Every structure is written in C-alpha cells, then in structure tokens.
C-alpha cells in the first residue's frame, strides 16, 4: 500500500526517528511503512493520520486511489 508519510514528515520537519518516537514504534517500522514493505495495523495507521491531523485517506492510498493521486 502506497502512502505519503514522507511528504507529511517533510511538511512537519520530522525525521523518521522523531516520528517513530512520537508514535511509539521503531524507526525501522516507519522506514518499512514508507517503503511499502510493511502495512501498518489499523491502529497505527489511525495514529499516524491523527498525529498529522488529517484523514487516514490523505496518508494511505489504497487500491484505485493510488492511481488517482
């Protein structure tokens, strides 16, 4: 699943380490999600979206939404 975490991180001037600390996960997990190697749990996905203050669909692009964006 594609996502725009890297973009939102850049917008908030956050490193992967910083975001990982905020969310209570390891930096490797943020890296794996960004690279599309790991799809986060629903809980973590919502946590990420809430942290950036946007809807979950703004961060994670599922199925057809990937092509539209």
């Amino acid at each position, binding site marked *: 699943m594609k996502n725009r975490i890297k973009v939102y991180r850049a917008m908030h001037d956050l*490193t*992967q*380490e910083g975001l*990982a*600390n905020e969310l*209570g*996960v*390891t*930096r*490797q*997990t943020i*890296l*794996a999600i*960004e*690279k599309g*190697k*790991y799809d*986060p*749990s629903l*809980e*973590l996905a919502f946590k990420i979206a809430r942290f950036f203050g946007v809807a979950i669909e703004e961060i994670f692009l599922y199925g057809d939404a990937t092509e539209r964006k």
Partner: protein
Amino acid sequence: MKRNTFYLLAGIVALAEVGIFWLSVELERPILIQVAFVLGVLLLYAARRAVEERIEDERTAMITQKAALRTLEVFWVAFFAISLGSAVVAFSRPLGLRPPHPGPPGTAPPDVLELPFIGGFALFQMALLCLMIFLYVGFRMYYARKYGEWDTDEEQD
C-alpha cells in the same frame, strides 16, 4: 540501558554460560549449568526490559510470530519423522533390560534393546533443539528482510 549495551551483555552471558557448562562437566555437577542457564535467561529478560530505546513494536511482533509459526510447521515434520524412525528401531527388537545374569556359560546373551544411554539421548535432544533454533533464526532473518529490517535510507549513518 542502550540497545547495544544489551547486545554486549547478551554476548557476555553466552560466553559465561559456555564457561559454566565446561566447569559443570569438569565437576560432574549438572545442577550448576542448569541453574546458571535459568539465571542467565532471567538476567537477559530483566536487561531487555531495561533497554530505553524501543526495540519492539507491532512489526517486530509480527515478524516474530511468523518466524515462530513457520519454525513450528517445519520442525514438527522433522521431529515426527525422526521419532517415527526411532520408534521403528525401538520396536524392531524386544524391549527390556539386559538380565543381571549373563546366563549359562557358553550361551549368548539375549538380543534385547539396550536402554538408551542418557548422555546420548541428551545430545540427541540438543541436536533437535539446535535444529529448531537454526530454523527459527533462518525464518526470522527471512521475514526481517522481507519487512525491511535492514533497509537503509538517507537518514541512516
């Protein structure tokens, strides 16, 4: 405690266990290594909890679960196959202890299965345990790689 300190401690504990195992064999006291092993595990468990940096989360938990499940799936087949072979060996000859008396002079002792030598049995168990550990480490590495454990990016040193 830093994560690397924990890994260093784990290495020291492993070396100490090898030394205590040797000492245990020399002194012929199995309780020594058994107690040392349990204490070592408890020490590492406590040290792991004292690590300040986060080393576990939902992704690592998933990797561990997948590796453990695959290990179990493969190991039980290997274990069952080996056990079946052992059962065939066991049932191929009459079971029982060799009689205390060798019998009348000039007669061959009855062909019975010797009770397994306990040290040999222990080594056999250790070999199976090693197989399980190797399987687990192999699967752990496979899934860790699959889910980006060792990936690097521009932020990494």
